[in-house]
């Protein structure tokens, strides 16, 4: 049976976490991708390696990702699919459990591995344990941890794009507006390099120290919860158990102590660098390279050293 992936897109193309979800879905059957948005995003999905079909609509009902109409649409499409997947993004985590309950199945959140069509691996307890769970439900509704699956290639596919079915509006909620930061930097969950700052940054102004090093490295900017709570960085920068899960080639933690909730979001990074003035800080226990020192002295030096070729 076919497998459906609900895509996230950035207004022009499907996101890298979506391609990771395609990679997970490819292990389960022929992949159909549902794209709600501009035609260019559907075309980008059609080119993704391993995609057999793209269903597309620009219906304004789905523009703002409201969970109620979106779940209703997915329910109407569900009979044709054995598995319905989405990346474990804010959007996917919002709608997929709603869909699962409407189908009377238990959602399987944030999978990090596919064992077979019924069996999946998922992290629990802030990633301190990995559970292998087998679902007895006739249909599986799944969100996919992007950091755990190498994304399907953006080029190489040539799927047909067809019209998605029309859905009903349950009329329960209204979208009022959003403040979405536009950034030139790479997206946190897709970046090859991430530089994150913690409570030690001390202020939003000081956080620019992180940003300018990130820009030298073409990196995304992350933060600990303490830095976000204090208002030094916006909420969507939070890395951790209850923020974003990242696994870049290089993660640089600056003035972050290394609480388990933070480690849960970054410990699968390929190379970890910790910069902290306390040599006992737990972050050093996961760091490949640790530098003990005052970040306000180290970071400017780091930046100028990076400028040297």
């Amino acid at each position, binding site marked *: 049976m076919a497998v459906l992936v609900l895509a996230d897109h950035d207004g022009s193309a499907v996101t890298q976490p979506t391609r990771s979800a395609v990679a997970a879905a490819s292990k389960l059957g022929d992949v159909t991708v549902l794209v709600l948005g501009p035609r260019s995003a559907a075309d980008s999905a059609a080119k993704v390696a391993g995609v057999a079909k793209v269903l597309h609509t620009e219906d304004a009902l789905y523009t703002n990702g409201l969970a109620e109409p979106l779940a209703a649409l997915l329910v109407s499409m569900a009979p044709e699919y054995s598995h319905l997947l989405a990346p474990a993004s804010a959007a996917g985590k919002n709608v997929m459990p709603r869909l699962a*309950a409407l189908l009377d199945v238990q959602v399987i959140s944030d999978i990090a591995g596919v064992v077979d069509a019924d069996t999946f691996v998922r992290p629990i307890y802030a990633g301190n344990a990995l559970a292998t769970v087998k679902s007895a439900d006739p249909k599986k509704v799944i969100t996919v941890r992007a950091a755990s699956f190498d994304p399907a290639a953006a080029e190489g596919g040539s799927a047909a794009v067809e019209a998605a079915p029309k859905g009903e509006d349950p009329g329960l909620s209204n979208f009022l507006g959003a403040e979405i930061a536009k950034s030139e930097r790479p997206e946190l969950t897709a970046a090859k390099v991430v530089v994150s700052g913690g409570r030690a940054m001390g202020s939003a102004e000081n956080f620019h120290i992180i940003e300018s090093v990130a820009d030298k490295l073409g990196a995304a900017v992350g933060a600990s919860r303490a830095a976000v709570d204090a208002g030094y960085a916006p909420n969507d920068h939070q890395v951790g158990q209850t923020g974003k899960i990242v696994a870049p080639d290089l993660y640089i933690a600056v003035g972050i102590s290394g609480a388990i909730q933070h480690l849960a979001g970054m410990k699968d990074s390929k190379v970890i660098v910790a910069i902290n003035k306390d040599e006992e800080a737990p972050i050093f226990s996961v760091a490949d390279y640790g530098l003990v020192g005052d970040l306000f002295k180290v970071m400017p030096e780091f930046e100028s050293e990076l400028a040297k070729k």
Partner: protein
Amino acid sequence: MKLLVPVKRVVDYNVKVRVKADHTGVETANVKMSMNPFDEIAVEEAVRLKEKGAATEIIAVSAGPTACQEQIRTALAMGADRGILIEHDGILEPLAVAKLLKAVIAKESPDLVILGKQAIDDDMNATGQMLAALLGWPQGTYASKVEPADGGIKVTREVDGGLERLQLKLPAIVTTDLRLNEPRYASLPNIMKARKKPIETLKPADLGVDVSPRLTVLKVEEPPKRQAGKKVGSVQELVEKLRNEAKVI
């Protein structure tokens, strides 16, 4: 407005859990248990709505073993009015919890249910959305602000890239994110007072709900351990290692 707040008993967030030697789960015997931190935020929000005069009554509900009474008492000490314990020994998945809550809601008719966005043990991030689906109610997940407005509620949500605002009809489901509020500590007098507040005990069978799990846990393992690396002596050395040894910049 009548409020219902589900609260879950979980391993305290400070405990570093250990996987059991037989790989059937994690060690929970003799481990400190607490209210799920996101549920403390949910109780706090409910109490603030009541203090502002926007709510009349707060009911705290927990599903699980008898010991969940402790977490209900915590909610009562923070300001909830009464508690309901749905007693069950054994695994309760979010779908089952949502069905139990739906049955309680049919009896209590709350206008707003505030849940945590995720329980920090199983990290499913699902119960609120599933409950909203079963009831056919709107959902405002990952809330960082909740305001009664225009006969409904306005919810500001933390999403990828920033914030968004929704207007929901009532009755509705809200799930809390970290920045919604800072939960209070219960004062000693309020802890004493909470001892006298009523807790009703029900069984899943009383509510006519089948709670059989849909997922079987085949095994629980420890993730691969990361080795601590080395300390470098200078920024120059760090950059040199990143360029020539790790080859990541």
